[in-house]
């Protein structure tokens, strides 16, 4: 479905906005940044292309993080029963301690290392003489005190440069203690953003964790939830709904997740993928090794949640030939809606006609457009920090993506079916049939197809561009993270953080949608905004310079 042109988008301004912003750059930067911006035009003769996942331009205030952030912080961080040991100087260990709101609730007798931060705290001497000995004793100490069943070692910048062999040390520890001990060489300088770290984490989990368990699911409706990190309890709300319908979750990668469960991931019947960017490698690799198909879902917003639930049901009907799951799905949807409809209507009435910028990581900027539309809002600009072209344009472009030096440095595993563990879950004919009704089965269409004509897309939107676009496109809300929000918020525009939900949440599922509506309404209608006026409504936005010498 191609969305129609929204009356909320200031078409004229949008058309000239990119140009105005780019004009401030030097010729070199102009040329580079130009390819990262476009105005959505569904009437264009060929699909629009955007540049993404290439090196950050030095000196511009990018909001991107590093490889370590993607590996240690995003993918591995939420795991409860793995002791994450950062091998490196203290800073990066500290900066990932409790900074992401991935909630964890250990089951009875389950270890929970999420509240902890473990580091080898390398000093100058360790950089000069090597940190291997320190890492070894740190593992011994961690084993003596915390007795984990899994240790994941993550390295920061200096480690790769001084050549500490963390893989060998991990292997030694596995042997010595009979635990899972895996190393992740996720030095900050690898790749061009967090994205490289996601890939490294995906690779290691496939190599050393997935497929090592033997706990067979009890029901025929078993699934893995991929790319759901339980920010503010999102995963719990999704789990609640799936549980009502009767799905059995084998494991979650990785929100409130456990290595003990992920070991059994290969025994599930279906992978559902929430965050495509950070976890699609595992979905693909599990299909290759174990034959498990995957389905792209989106549990942000009521309409998206309903579609995802129906898609899942369609798969299981096709697979089992039993359509009771479809009935059960519809019952639960109807029941959930009854409970929240009144509140949804109220917030819709408050929010209709409001516009927003969406600038989040690698999937959320897409997911949140649906919930906004449910409430009658519109995205005038959307962009990702670290996405690839397929997250914008759809997986059909993957084959055309240029492989550059940076992506070559991240190992790309080609995997064969694992003997005895590979199952063909659906016949080719059944897959083809399913695909005619479920477009997201084994496929992701990307963000741009669902954006309105005239809306602006910017990849790796930096601080300067944010400020420029804001004053031209005048949104009511700026959805982003903490680093980018203050310039906008202090100018008098509401900001909501979509990485952390500003200590709120969950926003996923049925009940989460109500929370989202409530939070955005509260924000837009706060009395404080009456006391300040956004700069563009009063006088031109000036960029000041200081200098009197």
């Amino acid at each position: 479905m191609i969305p129609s042109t929204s009356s909320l988008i200031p078409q004229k301004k949008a058309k000239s906005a990119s140009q105005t912003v780019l004009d401030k750059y030097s010729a070199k930067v102009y040329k580079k940044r130009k390819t990262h911006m476009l105005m959505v035009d569904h009437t264009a003769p060929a699909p629009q292309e955007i540049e993404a996942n290439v090196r950050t331009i030095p000196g511009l205030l990018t909001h991107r993080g590093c490889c370590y952030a993607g590996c240690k912080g995003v993918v591995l961080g939420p795991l409860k029963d793995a002791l994450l040991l950062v091998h490196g100087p203290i800073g990066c260990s500290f900066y990932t301690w409790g900074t992401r709101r991935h909630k964890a609730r250990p089951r009875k007798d389950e270890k929970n290392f999420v509240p902890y931060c473990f580091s080898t705290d390398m000093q100058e001497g360790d950089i000069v003489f090597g940190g291997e000995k320190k890492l070894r004793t740190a593992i011994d100490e961690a084993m003596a005190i915390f007795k984990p069943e899994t240790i994941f070692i993550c390295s920061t910048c200096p480690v790769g440069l001084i050549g500490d062999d963390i893989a060998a040390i991990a292997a030694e520890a596995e042997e010595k203690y009979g635990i899972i001990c895996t190393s992740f060489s996720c030095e900050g300088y690898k790749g061009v953003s967090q994205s490289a770290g996601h890939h490294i984490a995906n690779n290691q989990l496939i190599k050393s964790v997935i497929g090592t368990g033997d706990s067979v699911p009890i029901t025929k409706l078993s699934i893995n939830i991929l790319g759901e990190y339980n920010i503010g309890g999102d995963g719990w709300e999704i789990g609640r709904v799936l549980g009502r319908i009767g799905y059995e979750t084998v494991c979650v990668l990785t929100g409130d997740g456990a290595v003990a469960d992920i070991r059994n991931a290969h025994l599930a019947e279906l992978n559902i993928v929430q965050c495509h960017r950070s976890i699609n490698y595992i979905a693909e690799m599990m299909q290759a090794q174990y034959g498990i198909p995957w389905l792209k879902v989106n549990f942000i917003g009521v309409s998206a949640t309903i579609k995802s639930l129906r898609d899942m049901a369609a798969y299981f009907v096709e697979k089992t030939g039993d359509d009771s799951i479809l009935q059960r799905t519809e019952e639960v949807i109807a029941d959930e809606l009854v409970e929240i409809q009144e509140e949804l209507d109220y917030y819709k009435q408050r929010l209709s006609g409001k516009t927003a910028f969406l600038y989040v990581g690698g999937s959320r900027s897409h997911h949140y457009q649906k919930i906004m539309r449910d409430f009658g809002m519109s995205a005038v600009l959307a962009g990702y920090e670290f996405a690839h072209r397929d997250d914008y344009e759809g997986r059909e472009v993957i084959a055309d993506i240029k492989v550059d030096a940076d992506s070559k440095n991240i190992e790309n595993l080609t995997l064969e079916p694992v003997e005895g563990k590979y199952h063909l879950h659906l016949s080719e004919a059944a897959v083809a049939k399913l695909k005619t009704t479920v477009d997201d089965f084994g496929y992701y269409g990307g963000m741009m197809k669902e954006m309105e004509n005239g809306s602006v897309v910017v990849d790796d939107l930096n601080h300067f561009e944010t400020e420029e676009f804001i004053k031209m496109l005048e949104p009511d809300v700026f959805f982003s993270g903490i680093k980018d929000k203050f310039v906008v918020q202090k100018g008098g525009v509401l900001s909501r953080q979509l990485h952390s939900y500003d200590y709120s949440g969950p926003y996923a599922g049925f009940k989460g949608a109500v929370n989202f509506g409530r939070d955005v309404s509260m924000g837009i209608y706060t009395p404080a905004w009456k006391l300040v006026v956004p700069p563009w409504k009063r006088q031109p936005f000036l960029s000041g310079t200081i200098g009197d010498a």
Partner: protein
Amino acid sequence: MNNTTGTTEIIGATEAAEAAEAAGTTGAKALISLDVNPCKMCMPMGVVTAAYGIEGNMVVLHGSQGCATYIRRHMATHYNEPIDIASSALTEQGTVYGGAKNLERALDNFIRLYNPFAITVATTCLAETIGEDVNGILDSWREAHPQTTVQMIPVISPGYGGTQFEGHFAFLAALLKNVEMNSAPTGRVNIVCGPMSPADVRWLKQLVCQLGIDAIIVPDCSQALDGQHTEVYSRVHEGGTRIADVLQMAGSKHTIEIAKYLPEKLSPGALLKREYNVPYTRLNLPVGLRDIDALVNALKPFATLANVEHAELKLERGRYLDAMIDSHKYNALGRAVVFGEPDFVYSVARMCAEQGIMPVLVATASKCPALYADLEAELAPLAESMLVEKWRVIDEADFATIEELSVSLGANVLIGSSDARRIAKALDIPLVRAAFPIHDHMGGQRVRTIGYEGSQALIDRITNALIDQCEGSFREKLKAKYLVQPDTAFAVETTSRCLSNPDASLPVRTARQYLSDSVKRLCKHPTHEHPCFSKRCATKSTRIHLPVAPKCNITCNYCLRKYDCPNESRPGVSSVVLSPPQALKRYLDFKQQTGKVAIVGIAGPGDALANFDNTKETLRLIREVDKDVGFCLSTNGLLLARYAHTLAELEVSHVTVTMNAIDPAIGARICPWVSLDNLVYTGEAAAAVLLANQIEGIKALVSLGIIVKVNTVYIKGVNDAHVESVAQMAHRLGASVQNLMRMVSVKGSVFENYPQVDKPTLLEARVACSKHLSQMRHCRQCRADAAGLLGKDLLVRSLAERRTVVFQ
């Protein structure tokens, strides 16, 4: 994390830590290689914060972009301001070919968009590890841009070079080195600040204004990091020390450096003295009356306004003194933990001491070996007058160490950054957020600590935290946190006690006092039939231990539940683990074989209560088929309070609790690790949690009429002088008998090389203990799967199939 060791290598570390402790110095963190929950950040963080105090000065971090992103995120959360840090965004290619090109492009792009007056180029782990020559890169950049007016300030700041505290001063040193100084005399006064909040710097500015001093305050973050709402947004932050003023520092008549632990080589005061002969005075952070007075007195000679002897300042000081007097009685209850940067902890500890708040723990994460000696003269007499026995001053600390010491030192208020919020929550101790970073509250930029009003505000917050805690029945809360509550509504009479002092005024009770008639009925199996409790029947009554409990929730240094040897007989050893139905079968087989069984016992091989589902089910199954057999179990006592009532319902008549110490310091040497409800405690905290629950558990059992035996493992050199105290306590709790056991040295356990006690010594100890509690003298230290008469175990026939089991 003292004494929480598992390998011989680390035992060495513990000893080193103990030696350091004995020498009265530092070394609290016994884990040498592992930092658990860091109490520090990296150098570039300090550089950026200090750099924000120079007008028109922006930072480019030379390294991977993550460094800039993380620091922006952390500063933005604390200051609630946009934090603009650029990065040279080095990639893998840069690490191979050098990052010069990236840095040059970063400078070009940054200047084009932001056009700052000065740029601080700070290095990171990455740049320093690959050996970047930033000065060289900047030289060639300047050559290529001859017309540039941008002041460049290169700083060497690898993350591994120090904490944010050192980073702050590394920036200041670089600033003075790179700005072209002008030594023409100006008559001004330099004030060099360590890390301070914007609100604190504002007070300093107001102070010099009051005194009429023309001061150069550097750095001045009062506006840049605590901005006002403006109609026009400026991309380059406003406010701060102007470079035009910085260069005049060489011509000032004096420098006052507010930085107690500033390394001499980074000292701007020392540099200005050395190169421009500007005299300087080093002062403490002006927190607390003496150190504020010291600053005011140091400034007074330069004052030009003698307006009525600085009446306003006098009033401020007077109000502060008045406030101190008003709150002294609440403060006397304060047992504070002060943690953070060296200057902060030093001055806040002194301020607390002035107020009669005992800082039981002063901890910094920086290397600061002088801290202890500097505070000793202050804290030792205070401790004495406050009757505080134990207090510590430590450097290179992590939060795991701070947490453990907070428990063992009996702290009731934490003062520092918001990073201790997890400890505050876990221990139910209030946290006064007074230092960077404050991530979970608003207003970090406005936190006041210096000056009369600042210290007064801080003290009020501390006092109020103490009052709230006192009023809010702190002890009850702490108890609820640490003591395992009964799993039924059954009320167990308890008395309120402080965790760290288990010896305090316990009522004396005996079993008899609590044996009401209804309870007596539960106790069908008189003690004279139990082979352990009665020597007379030891040769007659048969008993069977059913090994249904493999897991344990504590770690004892003498124990290893790993190996099975059919020829070895000691607690914690078993050939198999049985499920409840298997245990029932075994019991029935055994009964058929021997005729009469007096007692069924659950003795591990782990802890009977740590596997309570199995234990409960086993006893239930046996009771279904046998109404007469007596039940007995042994436990470490950690979960005893929770399950005591259920044990009574299951008709357990005898319980053995292993209690090796009643002093957490000694307990920690024996049992350094406890896992309770998904939380792990180590060291003295672990021992205290275990002990508190043993005490409540035994009291509950006794009140239910269950006969309690206390097992005490006699470990030479550890608890040998302490076993009599254990006996005394056990008696007061109402236990019936004590079993003083020799320690079996188990190969591979931590205590494997500890000496065995000889028989005469053990007998002597039993005589001493018998003054308090009758002694069991016929123990055979049975296996967890023993069956038969004491010392004459039979092999149960159904267990022909043996296998080696490695327990968790």
